[in-house]
């Protein structure tokens, strides 16, 4: 065991893992975090807490993780390289682990031009690959980047993201391999809508034996409406939404589109579960935490295993 987090225990025991996601509020309202957390209690093994996602200022993810811990849920701290240099990233990891956080997801972070403060400077002192390697070094060698010894090293289960649908497709698995080599213990993928393409990606992953070196969790996000599907298809870079998904949602009619979105999401989970190398699913019910249970239950993934 690297960290002994619940997520690590579930995966190590060979269970099909389920992780959720929670976006901190655009203010300091702790109650909102607790409310969202309540919806995810008992239905996921760990909850990703996003770090100023889409470069929109929100409550600090470390603080939101702490609120989650107090509610008895296990957080997975997302950390992006956009806003902090190596000093702050290492410092925040020490602080986070001192508070009891055991899972960390290392990301580059969306460019601030997408966000609500596009005029800001960005940092990107490290990239996601280097962040993975830095945290692995802190955990395994008990050293900072500068080789100085840590007085108390973090015990963390280290995660990374992968997008099987970004371009160039032929390099995607290589990049995944690099993340694993750099230190990723688990991977959470971008939302999957194009299952044949994901299958092709996973075949390459399995051919290279990467699924034996780390746990790969397939990402899913339920579509709330035809509008959301169209938006994601057109405007979100690296998102692959096949036309048939849009058609299905449209055919369901405005009133039933959300229900159809959940149905598609459940079917996706069931299908990716059958793909070799997939160790779990990451359910990103963004601002829809209260519908997560329906999806996870519908996919037959409840109750969640309890591993000692």
């Amino acid at each position, binding site marked *: 065991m690297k960290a002994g987090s619940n997520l690590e225990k579930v995966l190590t025991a060979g269970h099909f893992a389920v992780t959720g996601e929670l976006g901190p509020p655009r203010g300091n309202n702790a109650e909102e975090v607790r409310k969202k957390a309540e919806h995810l209690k008992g239905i996921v093994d760990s909850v990703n807490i996003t770090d100023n996602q889409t470069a929109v200022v929100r409550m600090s993810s470390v603080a939101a993780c702490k609120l989650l811990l107090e509610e008895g849920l296990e957080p997975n701290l997302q950390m992006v390289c956009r806003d902090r240099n190596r000093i702050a990233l290492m410092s925040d990891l020490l602080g986070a682990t001192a508070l009891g956080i055991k899972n960390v997801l290392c990301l580059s972070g969306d*460019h*601030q*031009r997408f966000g609500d403060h*596009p*005029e*800001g*400077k*960005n940092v990107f002192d490290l990239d996601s690959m280097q962040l993975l390697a830095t945290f692995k070094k802190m955990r395994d060698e008990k050293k900072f980047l500068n080789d100085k010894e840590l007085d108390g090293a973090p015990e963390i289960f280290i995660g990374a993201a992968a997008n099987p649908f970004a371009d160039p497709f032929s390099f995607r698995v290589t990049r995944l391999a690099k993340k694993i080599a750099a230190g990723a213990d688990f991977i959470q993928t971008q939302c999957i809508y194009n299952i044949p393409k994901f299958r092709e990606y996973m075949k390459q992953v399995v051919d290279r034996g990467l699924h034996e070196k780390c746990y790969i969790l397939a990402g899913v996000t339920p579509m709330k409406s035809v509008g959301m599907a169209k938006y994601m298809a057109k405007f979100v870079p690296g998102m692959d939404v096949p036309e048939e998904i849009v058609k299905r949602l449209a055919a369901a009619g405005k009133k039933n589109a959300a229900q159809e979105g959940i149905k598609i999401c459940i079917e996706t989970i069931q299908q990716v579960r059958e793909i070799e190398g997939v160790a779990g699913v990451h359910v990103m019910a963004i601002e829809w935490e209260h519908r997560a249970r329906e999806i996870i239950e519908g996919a037959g993934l409840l109750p969640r295993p309890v591993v000692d």
Partner: protein
Amino acid sequence: MIIGDSKPLEEILEMIEGRDKVLVLGCRGCVTVCNVGGEKEVGILATALRIARKKAGQEPHIDEATLERQCDPEYIEELADTAENYDAIVSIACGVGPQFLSERYPTVRVFPGINTTFIGGALEHGVWAERCQSCGNCIVHHFGGLCPIARCSKSLMNGPCGGSAAGKCEISPEVDCVWHLIVEKMERMGRLEELERVWPVKNWLTSRDGGPRTRIREDLKQ
């Protein structure tokens, strides 16, 4: 102008190891003026490479050339008949040179022979200093003609910070505190009260932070 530093000879030798025919390529632009990448430096580097290769018992096939500029396709084109004859081109222009060459001659291996360091000027012969960070929104006139973005170690717009001591920056006694200079200059000009203004946050979109920059001048485009 763009200032550069020569790379160590060992590093360049390592780059071109196993590559027989080598072209050392200079530029008559900024790097000629700052004595790092012009015709003269091409000759010096080529000679050093020849000596090193001879010492290693190799036949030195090192050619020399210098283009008017390496940041202009027009001049890059001059190598159309010869570029592909080389196993390596060592460009000693700024970072633009190796990139323009690689784009134009995709099968040729191009290596950077210098490190591009900053935009600056000559303080005296052999001494250059950074003066501009190309933030894309110049405000030096508000600071007595001294740029706090490029010359303050923290790019403070409301300095000097608490680390300013005896006119020097906290990072090194070799580095002037530009804010010390700004205050003195504004005082001399009788403009000190202008510095009472609390400068609001800067829009960095015009800087590198906004992503790679391209400028299109419709009036000049053909």
